[in-house]
């Protein structure tokens, strides 16, 4: 596996984790728990943004990956 596809995989699993957290943020019965989940959904978003930017840079640097 190339670094590119590995990074992409991490990105996808982070997105899925974020979605699960978001679901908990909606469903959790406890107010405080809900807030904690929401806070971490937002925190993950910034990580995801940065990582997807990195993926784009890699595509630009090494065009042969594009389209994977």
């Amino acid at each position, binding site marked *: 596996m190339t670094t590119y596809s*590995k990074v992409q995989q991490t990105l996808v699993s982070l997105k899925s984790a974020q979605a699960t957290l978001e679901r908990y943020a909606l469903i959790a019965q406890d107010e405080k*728990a809900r807030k904690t989940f929401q806070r971490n959904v937002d925190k993950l978003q910034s990580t995801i943004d940065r990582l997807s930017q*990195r993926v784009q840079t890699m595509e630009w640097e090494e065009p042969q990956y594009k389209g994977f």
Partner: protein
Amino acid sequence: MLPAWLEIIIRSFSLIVFLMVLTRLLGRKIASRMTYFDIVFAIALGMIAAAVSIRLIDVLSGVIALLTWGLIGMGISYLSLKSKMVRDLVHGREAVVIKHGKVMEDQLKKMRYTPEDLLQQLRSKQIFNLADVEFAVMESDGEINALLKSNRQPITPKHLGVQTAPETGVQTVILDGNILDEPLTTMGLNRGWLRTELEKIGVSPENVFIAQVDGMGELYIDLFDDTIQIPQPSTRQLLLNSLEQAKADLETYSLETDNQSAKKMYRQSAKELSSVIYDVRHLLK
């Protein structure tokens, strides 16, 4: 004139009905929570009724006695609801029998409680060592409740400094194969959600004996057919694992890359992830 046996039957029967009404009016109390006064009252009522029933006394004086006892009983229970003084007077008050780990002998004597009684009561609470008790109170019904010394108290998550997920109530959403709408609504869920969750596990609602949803929307089910193995809910553990995995991956990338700014970015992201993990860990355990 009625034959004696018939009269006894009639008397007993009507007295039972009478007593049933009277005890209802006197208020309900759990037998084990009865104070000395309550017990005396109950016995007196019972004895008068029994005496009338076997013709030891005539009906008129029996009924008068029962009514008097009943009315006074109702009066006292009403007054003791209203006033603390009457309560203390009638039912007695709680007394501190062990204070700062020392037995208050005077109090025990006042309550006619022998040291053996005290020890026995403590033993029934799994306290075999008097030295473990910091504070103990004798309730008005004679029961002893003890507070252990702080280093003898059971360990709670708070002692260990462990954060725990808040335990919000569990709702039962399926009973005997029937979906219950009201608990679902209380949780902010609906039948559609439940169907999807059941589909994920691969069972239909009719095969579910009991299904419960916890505060995090996790479904626990018990099927009619006990031979079928169903997966236990593990989404939370999986989520935690995937976060940990992503964090480890990011750390690896930061080591592998030669690009300085990418290195920094990966390291930063890994740090962020570990703060996320730290924040939600206790909720996902």
